[in-house]
Every structure is written in C-alpha cells, then in structure tokens.
C-alpha cells in the first residue's frame, strides 16, 4: 500500500513539473496551437421569456407597494379550495380539474393558496404579489398547458375599494403594454371575490379597431386578468374581520401576457426549450 502511494506521488509530481515547464516556456513555443484560430463560442445563458415577464410584472407592482410572496406547489384542499370559499361538490370546481397526489393533497391549481397563507400569518395591511407554478388537468394545446405560471395580487386594508382595484390594474396595464392602453372591466365570477370582474385591454394586435382581427375575434378587446373584491367569507376563514377590512385580488397568466405582447401563437413554444425561439428574448 505504502509503495503504491509513493509511486503515485512520484507520478503526480513529475506531471506537475512537466506542466510547469511547459507553461514557463510560454504558449508561443507550443507548435500545435494556432493563435489565429477564432475562439470557441460559449453559450451565454439568459432568463426564460416567461421568467422575464414574471420579474417585470413583480417589479411594476413593487413600485406600487407590493411585496413578492411565494408558497408550496403541493397544497391541501383546504388551502386550494375551501378556505377560498369554493363550496364542496360545486360546479365551480369543474374549471379547476386537479392533479391529486393522494388524500387531500394536490398540485395547486392557482397561486391563491398563498393569499390564505399570508392572511393567516400576517396582519393587515397586506400588499403582495404571488408568482408561481400551477397545475391543472387541461389538454396540452395551443392555448392550454397542464403546467403554467400565474401571478396573483392581494391587497387587504381598511377602506380598500373597487376604485383602488381598478386604478391599480389600469396603471399596471399602462406600464406593461403602453401608456395609452385602455382597459375595461366586465362582470365575472370567482368564488373568492365578490363582486368579480375580468379586465380586458385594447387588442394589442389591431389596436382596438376590431374588425377582421383574428387575435381579438373582432371585438377590439383582449381578456388579460380576473379580479374582484375579496369575498368576506375568505377573510373570515383567515380570522380577518371583514367588517373592518376590505381587500382586492387579481390573477393573471404571464404566458398569456407574453403571448399578447410578442404575438406568440402557441403556448407550447414556452416549453419546447428550442433555443432558436428562446434566444429572441434575451
């Protein structure tokens, strides 16, 4: 054993000496290196387009006073549904067909559980944005993916109103699209907000003109997010006094924002890892 170790030590010392000698001789002395050869290109990494959009959205809301909050991707039914005022056995659950991991644990279908976790652990005033990955049993086609990103926002404080919600989201739309972008709100339904509204922005392809535009089906508007005033039952489920505090919340898909902004026709492109696609968005 000692002999073998000694021999190895000698070999290594000799190799190191040799290498040192070569290096001291200088590179010019190496006959087999052609210094005029072009260098080998290195792939430079960059953030994925969806990550960039997530960061950009979070940055806009940070300026508006919102902190970034995250939570687990595996959630219990309580956090994913029931604390959010989803009634058991209700058709509202159909839109959220989920992947169960066993028992009452599932892959979260939206980032809303983070709202509950935050409300349980912090006292109002609360202003958060919650980016994260979500999972639904949707087909994998041009406009759906079973895995997708979501960003939600939540504000809870004394005296927050629908006016605050509208102005914040309109300000956001002007920042992410263009300073003259118009928005409109339409009635909608989510179990965890009341009243609920969807926000449309002027079609980014036809500029709101509508007629003949395929992107907005001729309506001049594109739906980009769902929103509403936090349902009092959600606040009460988290032991927040719904008489004293009011809140607003919204949720949007960064992939969709990226698609609208860059005219990307197929959500699957985000998951293909095709460098020819991705490197356009450095």
């Amino acid at each position, binding site marked *: 054993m000692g002999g073998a170790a000694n021999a190895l030590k000698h070999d290594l010392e000799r190799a190191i000496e040799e290498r040192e000698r070569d290096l001291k001789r200088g590179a010019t002395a190496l006959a087999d290196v052609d210094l005029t050869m072009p260098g080998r290109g290195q792939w430079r990494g960059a953030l994925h387009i969806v990550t960039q959009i997530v960061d950009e959205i979070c940055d806009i809301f940070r300026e508006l006073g919102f902190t970034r909050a995250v939570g687990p991707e595996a959630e219990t039914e309580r956090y994913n549904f029931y604390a959010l*005022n989803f*009634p*058991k*056995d*209700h*058709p*509202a659950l*159909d*839109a959220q067909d989920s992947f169960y991991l066993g028992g009452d644990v599932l892959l979260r279908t939206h980032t809303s559980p983070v709202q509950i976790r935050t409300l349980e652990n912090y006292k109002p005033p609360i202003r958060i944005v919650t980016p994260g990955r979500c999972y639904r049993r949707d087909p994998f086609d041009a406009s759906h993916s079973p895995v997708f990103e979501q960003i939600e926002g939540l504000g809870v404080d004394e*005296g927050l*109103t*629908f*006016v*605050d919600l509208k102005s914040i989201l309109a300000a956001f739309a002007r920042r992410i699209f263009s300073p003259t972008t118009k928005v*409109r*709100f*339409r*009635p*909608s*339904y989510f*179990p965890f907000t*009341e*009243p*609920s*509204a*969807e926000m449309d922005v002027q079609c980014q392809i036809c500029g709101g003109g509508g007629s003949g535009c395929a992107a907005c*089906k001729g*309506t001049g508007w594109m*739906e980009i997010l769902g929103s509403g*005033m936090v*349902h*009092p*039952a959600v606040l009460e489920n988290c032991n927040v006094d719904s008489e004293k505090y*009011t809140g607003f919340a919204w949720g949007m898909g960064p992939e969709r924002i990226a698609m609208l902004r860059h005219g990307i026709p197929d959500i699957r492109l985000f998951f293909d890892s095709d460098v020819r696609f991705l490197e356009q968005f450095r």
Partner: protein
Amino acid sequence: MIVSRRWLEALLGRPLEGRDIADRLARQVAPVDAVVPIHQDLRDVLIARVLEVRQHPNADRLTLCLVDAGGSAPLEVVCGAPNVQAGKAYPFAPVGATLPGGLKLERRKIRGVESNGMLCSAKELGLGVDHAGILELQTNAAPGTPFLEAIPVADEQIVIDVSANRPDLLCHKGVARELAVSLGATVKLPEIPGGSAVGRLGGLKHASPTAQPPNRPTATVDGVEVRLEDPEGAPRYMIAVVRGVKVGPSPVWLSARLQAIGQRSINNIVDATNYILFEVNQPLHAFDLARLRGPAVVVRRAKAGEQIVTLDGVVRKLTAEMTAICDAERPTIVAGVMGSAESEVSETTTDIVLECAYFQPTRIRRTRRALGVSSESSYRFERGIDMLAMPEALNRAIDLIRAVAGGEMREASIDLWPEPQQPRSVFVRDARVSHLLGVPVPRKEIERYLSAVGRRTTGWRCRCPAGARTSRARSTSSKRSHGSAATIHSRTSSGPIVPAPSPTRRRS
C-alpha cells in the same frame, strides 16, 4: 349556452341584432364566445311561384314547370318532385346559385330539355330530412324575394360562457331578462302557436305555485300512484298525466327553434319538453305510461347494484347514493340525469307521465360523475333550478304538449313538496355597497338596478325572483348589469338565494 337571436326576439317582442346582443351581454352579464349566423348558405335561394306544370316530353316522372322567379320572363325548370303544383310557392335556386354543401347550380339539359334552375326540397336546403318532395311555402312574398327575407329561418346563435353562479342564464328567459334591462324592454313568454285552440290545461285547475297543505309524500293522479320516498334527493316533485297524445314529428316552428340552438328534433313530445328546458330552465321528463308497472312512480334511493339501460343504450349500475325514479318494480330514470330506453316515449305511446322535479344539486353532481354521463338536465339540476317556478313551467309544458300532440288531462297535476320553501330574502346594506365600491350608490339607485332584473325590494331586504340562485356560493345572487348591484353579500345570506331544499344542503 347557445341562445337563438330569434328566440330572444320572441321573448322581448322586438327585433334584435346578434352583434349588439353579444356586446350588451359581454359588458353587463357574461362573456360571449361567438355569434354564429346559421342558414346563411341559403342567401342565393329565392321565392318562386310555379305558373304552369306540364309533362316532360322525354320522361314520365319529370315535369316541366314555368316558374316566376321575379325576372322579366318566366323560366322553364325541370322538376322531379311529385308534389309540384301550379299556383304554389317554392324555394328556388337560380342558375349560378350555391346551395348548402357547396353545390353550384349550372344551366343544363335534363333529358333533352334545358332547366334554368331548381325547385328545392327541405333536405337540399339543410332545413330537414324531407326529400320526398319540394318544400311548399306558405308565403305572400313576391316571386324573386330572397328566401331568407321571406321565411324566418335565418338566425344567429349567441354562444354565452355562463359561469357556475349564474344558472339563470341557462335558458332564453334568463338571458332575455338581462337584455330587457339594457334595452328597456319587458320579457313575456310568447303565445304557443295553436295553444288557444286546445285551451289552457283543458280547463283543469292550474297547479298552484305553493303546495297545498297537507304536504303529502304520496298522491294519486289519474290512476297513477306517486310516492316521494326520498324528499332529500327530490325536495319537490310534480307529476301530470296526459292521455291520448299522438306522437309524431314536431311542427316546423318548434323543430326550427330547437335546430337553431343545435338540438336535434326527435318527436313532438320530447321536443316540447326540450323547448321548455331551453325556454325557462326547467328540465322535464316524459315517459310512457303503458310501460309503467303499477302504474306507479316511486322516487327513492336506488338499491346498490340495481341496473338500468339508459337512453344511450348503456347498462348502468346504480348505487344507494343515487336517486332513482322507479315504477312499482324497478328504476325507469336515473333522477335528473337520464331516462331508460325502455320507458322512453315512442311512436306507439298514447298516454304519458310528465315529470317536473327539483333534484338536489350535490346528489346530481355526484351521480353523473359516478356514472360518467352528463345531460342538459343534469347540467341544470347540478347548478340549481328555480324551485318556485316549477308549476308555471309544468303548466306551460302541458299546454305545449296538448298544442303539438293533442291529448287530454283528466285530473290536475300533483305537487309533492313536503317542506315548502318561501322566496328567499337577502339583506343589502346600502352603506356597505358604497363602502366596497368606493363610489356613492344611493339606495334609490340600488333599488332601481335590482327591480330591473325582477327583484322585489322591501325595506332593507331584497326578495329574489325566479331562477337567480346559486347554491351556497354566498353573495353571488346578483352579478348584475351594473357591477354596483353585485354587492348584495351579507352575513345573513349564507344559504342559497332561492329556497334551500333541506338543511343538509348548506355545508359551506
């Protein structure tokens, strides 16, 4: 949910424009996915009057018709239909016209005689399956008038994305009610064509909107014993017996209504029940009295392992968690989901049992998931229908059936409703509305928005009308036109807005 523009026009009593309806609905009620014109492929077809019919010189079965299609001179047209008659009006495709399916008409010789166009059958126009003869038209329109202008078949489908809290939008009446607010119109159910001839309910007393005490769990109607053994699964259950109906094809107006929203016309009885479903959101089921052992209708929980062959021909095994409508021996309907092939109304049916029920939404949802089958009925029961509007819907269904299929009622329908419900009240605090919205909304204005969609406001309370309920999603009674009205949430409205069938439903 697909609604027909023409159907809405009938309810609102005024002409509408598809795109305009879509905009109003999208802004105030629910997103509209599409506006789809139907029968636009008939735009080349004209109204023509046949002036003269002669024998084709070279063919026994063909005729040579002189046709006035509005042009300067009559046209000579070869026709193969046995029913062509001089003096009558028919749809006519001139040379150069494109017919449904893309067929382009050319001038060509048929057995040596040139034909300048074609008189069309219902099938050639995509308006039915009848190909035995050409379609005779009852119209005074001048020859040459476009077919679509003269005959009301052109329609637009408005495809509405209805959210889970708005089951009231799953019928034309509910959609019309929202439009009425925006248009300043009123909603009125149209007269049933031919309805006045048979008289309402054949002179029998109308079912009353509230149950008459004592609220029995069993009753007999026209020799049929009805037993409600599962009031939890079926809180309210109504049955009518109509005898002497003649099952056959539906009149054109009825099949056209259903076809316009993408439904197949089956026969006059089934079409009548489907019409009521899409008009006022009340699923109905008609089954053959002759196939009913007893004759009895028993509403009970299914026994584990009981089997039924449903309408789609599939053998389904029931569990004790499901409600079944049975005769004296076995299940004939998976309650609220699908009937059996055996008890289905057929051409030989003369006496029918007409069911009008409220089934417990959670039970229906679990049943249809367990069986892996869904229907227009289960979709609606699962979302909750208007329990208080059932008598009205049943009476209208009876009137409609008698108008399109004849038949007599010997006894008034029965209404099993062990625990009658009252219209539900919801508290609205005007200060809270303004507080949440951030803009002042005066009480008068709140009242105006609410009464426009049929809510009665009395003091601090707001009483909800037909159809606007949502099970247990607390404050969603009124996602209404103006956003502001949508804040009728309150601590007192923790149950469904229209009657909760039983306390066990409230689990939220």
